[in-house]
């Protein structure tokens, strides 16, 4: 067996070992993630207002949920 082949096998094995460090958060470990400060938008209403203002100023078509519509203000 050539040194090159052995090197390839060992590097792939090492890579697989390190990849196992990648893990998903288990269902019972989500306590910290559920805290309000961990949310992307802790206050959904405030986020909606900010999004609405943003899209109105950008003069682009509405990208956020605006139910009802019709006022042409977005």
């Amino acid at each position: 067996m050539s040194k090159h082949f052995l090197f390839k096998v060992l590097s792939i094995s090492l890579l697989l070992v390190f990849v196992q460090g990648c893990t998903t958060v288990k269902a019972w470990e989500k306590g910290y993630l559920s805290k309000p400060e961990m949310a992307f938008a802790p206050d959904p209403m405030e986020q909606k207002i900010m999004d609405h203002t943003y899209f109105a100023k950008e003069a682009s078509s509405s990208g956020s949920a605006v139910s009802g519509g019709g006022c042409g203000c977005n």
Partner: protein
Amino acid sequence: MKRLALVCFLLCSGVSAWAVDLGSVAPNAPLKELAGTEPGKLSGIADYKGNLVYLDFWASWCGPCRQSLPIMNKIREQYAEYGFEVVAVNVDENLDDALGFLEQYPVSYPVLLDPEGKMPAMYDVQGMPTAYLIDRKGVIIYKHEGFKKSDEAKIEAMIKENL
């Protein structure tokens, strides 16, 4: 050399999670009792063998638990005399969160503490809350993931059927 390569590859492949299925014996781990007959002592579902046990994994941050705990408390009070028990396993990393939740939603059944998540890992819990109905011989007969008010009838029917 080829054998060495194969062995290296297999060693690095990792092992699958320990999962439990319906019909398998319910795994047990001794956990500290937060509330129950003897707070502070080590307890587990093995202590309730001979009863029909509803093993409920819950946490203070789990929204549906605000509904499930009072409902299970009510069901437990109804059927306790027939040998039914609810054993709740709390997975909060912070004890104060669990205590705060129990102050709001008090229960009369045993609550075990598992901040390290030993028990949910043994059961390979996929969502919170998850509950398992364990028969009198310690075999898992039913699994219930999530919780909504309309689940109460289904769970009660399963309990009545297996009492």
